[in-house]
């Protein structure tokens, strides 16, 4: 825990560090560190073999560089791939055994883990650096046959499910960061919803990066069996540091016949300071497959943090009549950069996809929507609707829209609409004349601009997200 270099920055209120002893893997990327991770997690040998296979594959892959935001070369040998609070090395069996400092950290973040303060109707899995430290409401969910636990626990207790589905949506060899994740992933959430079950509460994971010089490699796997429904939400924060930290997650969703998964993200990693020093590199692979007929996967993301956000939550629409949705708000301020969007791969007949993307750029930031709509020959009578709106604040920021559209049959239709606007002086004047100050006015106008996406969020989080939208843009209009 050296080299903290914390900055004083009023606007990012989650920038504190928890001073806690941690256990780390040997520095650098090697078979040794992978074995260390697998061993400390007491994984079965098939899991280690899988990791090592990924590592072997990784050596043949190159980091992609087609993205708009460029970044300095990452020294993968200078990172820790595993860091966990010492107290959780033998995973606590109950909440009473968790280090009070960690409970305090989550309390500060507004995520109470302690029984009596729990959020109503929301089960939380809390991931601290590389390990899951607590999962709430477990018993209640178990009664319904729902499995909600850390992926580490699932590997031990539900190996048949993990073995069957891990890597089935994002294959080992997919691309550099996804393969890196497969080799060194540490923790994340596992969800299984049994057939014909509607998950009675929101499931949520809260990711916290605490240790420095550490990469976070989250792995999440969600399986919705036939006729089931689940709504899942993740939130993320990190301390303020001068260094850039890597968060390379893999998230896989599987929806079987008539199942629905709603996955929401509120990403608020440390964005770096006003001059673009520090911040998280958020290089994430999220992909869902609508494997069964009439299944549905809906991604909603509110991306306000990170120095660079680079992700395309995607849907493979394999089952006939399946539906994929992507609702996104990406806000970049100061020197933040985002290159985000989605891929909708239509394979089944009568498949539908909808993409609503709202990009907001302020300061010196750069915001790119990049998306692929690919309708296969066999995906007859399929439809896509895409709407990409960009809002610019000031004249030093940028917005870009890069849609890739492939339609391989004649019965399908694709619609694409895109707009770019500057925040309107007349709107601001009108709001000011009604007594709103500049920041209230910006917040109101931007929230209006994002409304279609915000209303997709579970209600408990919509209000928080609205506030976050306003905070992210503070000081952006002079």
């Amino acid at each position, binding site marked *: 825990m050296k080299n903290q270099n914390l900055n004083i920055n009023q606007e990012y209120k989650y920038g504190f560090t928890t001073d806690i002893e941690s256990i780390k893997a040997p520095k650098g990327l090697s078979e040794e560190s992978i074995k260390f991770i697998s061993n400390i997690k007491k994984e079965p040998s098939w899991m280690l073999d899988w990791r090592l296979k990924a590592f072997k594959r990784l050596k043949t892959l190159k980091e992609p560089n087609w993205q708009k935001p460029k970044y300095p070369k990452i020294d993968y040998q200078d990172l820790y791939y595993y860091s966990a609070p010492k107290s959780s090395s033998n995973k606590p069996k109950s909440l009473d055994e968790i280090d009070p400092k960690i409970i305090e950290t989550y309390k500060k973040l507004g995520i109470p883990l302690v029984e009596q303060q729990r959020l109503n109707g929301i089960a939380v899995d809390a991931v601290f650096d590389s390990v899951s430290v607590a999962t709430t409401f477990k018993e209640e969910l178990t009664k319904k046959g729902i499995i909600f636990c850390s992926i580490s626990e699932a590997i031990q207790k539900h190996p048949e499910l993990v073995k069957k589905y891990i890597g089935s949506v994002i294959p080992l060899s997919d691309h550099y960061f996804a393969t890196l994740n497969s080799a060194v992933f540490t923790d994340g959430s596992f969800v299984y919803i049994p057939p014909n079950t509607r998950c009675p509460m929101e499931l949520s994971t809260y990711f916290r990066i605490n240790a420095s010089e550490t990469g976070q490699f989250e792995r999440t796997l969600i399986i919705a069996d036939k006729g089931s429904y689940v709504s899942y939400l993740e939130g993320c924060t990190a301390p303020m540091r001068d260094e850039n930290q890597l968060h390379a997650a893999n998230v896989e969703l599987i929806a079987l016949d008539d199942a629905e998964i709603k996955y929401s993200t509120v990403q608020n990693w440390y964005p770096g300071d006003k001059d673009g020093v520090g911040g998280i590199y958020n290089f994430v692979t999220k992909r869902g497959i609508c494997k069964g007929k009439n299944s549905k996967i809906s991604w909603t993301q509110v991306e306000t943090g990170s120095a660079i956000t680079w992700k395309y939550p995607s849907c493979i629409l394999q089952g006939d009549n399946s539906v994929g949705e992507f609702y996104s708000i990406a806000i970049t301020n100061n020197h933040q950069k985002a290159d985000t969007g989605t891929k909708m791969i239509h394979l089944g007949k009568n498949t539908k996809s909808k993409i609503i993307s709202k990009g907001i750029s302020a300061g010196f930031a750069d915001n790119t929507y990049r998306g692929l709509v690919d309708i296969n020959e066999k995906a007859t009578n399929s439809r896509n609707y895409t709407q990409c709106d960009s809002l610019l604040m000031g004249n030093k920021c940028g917005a870009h829209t890069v849609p890739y559209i492939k339609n391989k049959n004649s019965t399908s239709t694709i619609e694409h609409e895109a707009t770019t606007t500057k925040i309107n002086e007349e709107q601001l004047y*009108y709001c000011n004349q009604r007594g709103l100050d500049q920041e209230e006015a910006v917040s*109101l*106008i931007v929230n*209006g601009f994002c409304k279609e996406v915000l209303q997709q969020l579970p209600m408990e989080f919509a209000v928080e997200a609205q506030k976050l939208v306003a905070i992210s843009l503070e000081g952006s209009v002079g």
Partner: protein
Amino acid sequence: MLNIKNLKVSVENKLILNDLNLKINPGEVHAIMGPNGSGKSTLANVLSGKKGYEIQGEILFDELNINDISVEERAQKGIFLAFQYPVEIPGVNTNVFLRTSLNSIRKSKGEKELDTLNFLKLIKEKAKELGIDEKFLSRQLNVGFSGGEKKKNEILQMKLLQPKLSILDETDSGLDIDALKIVADGVNSYKKKDNAFLIITHYQRLLDYIKPDFIHVLSKGKIVKTGSAELALELEKSGYKNL
């Protein structure tokens, strides 16, 4: 309440208002008439504090020089402008906008903010007074509103925010006779001894329904004539060109 002294306003070195003087006392209704391009809307904008104007002279509001005070502070002090072209704000519910606005003003006065429930009660009452359908309140602010609906919305906001000085900038333009009556009723029912109106209009029509205490004729950036309500009728007959 309002005291404008030797006001000169120019935009990009072009003089628009030239040595304008006007005093408005509580309880008074003033109308400003004048041909297109005489500077009527500029006056409304300058009084509200809109940026982009070079200003000389003094604008006193409740004895305080407000030349350097921001738009929102003026609004909080009780200056309200009913816009000639109310702005659309997509995605923002009329209700939410009105509540944010009311609470900003209440906050500035150190009053407690209204919660959603109490606000809804209040706004529904005000809407009813003006004969405005409740459904209107849950629509996006001014988006897809007809000209008449936009203007009614301005009057609704005026009645909600209870300003000391209400400036109506050509609120009558583009209104059919029914909408015009609603607007006029709104103004007349809000008229009290401690607030005042400045009504900017091109036509005499609105003044059939709202009786001003004074009429000023603005021409080439100056008030060239001031009179009582009868002056409007005169102007309607002979036009502005004889002035």
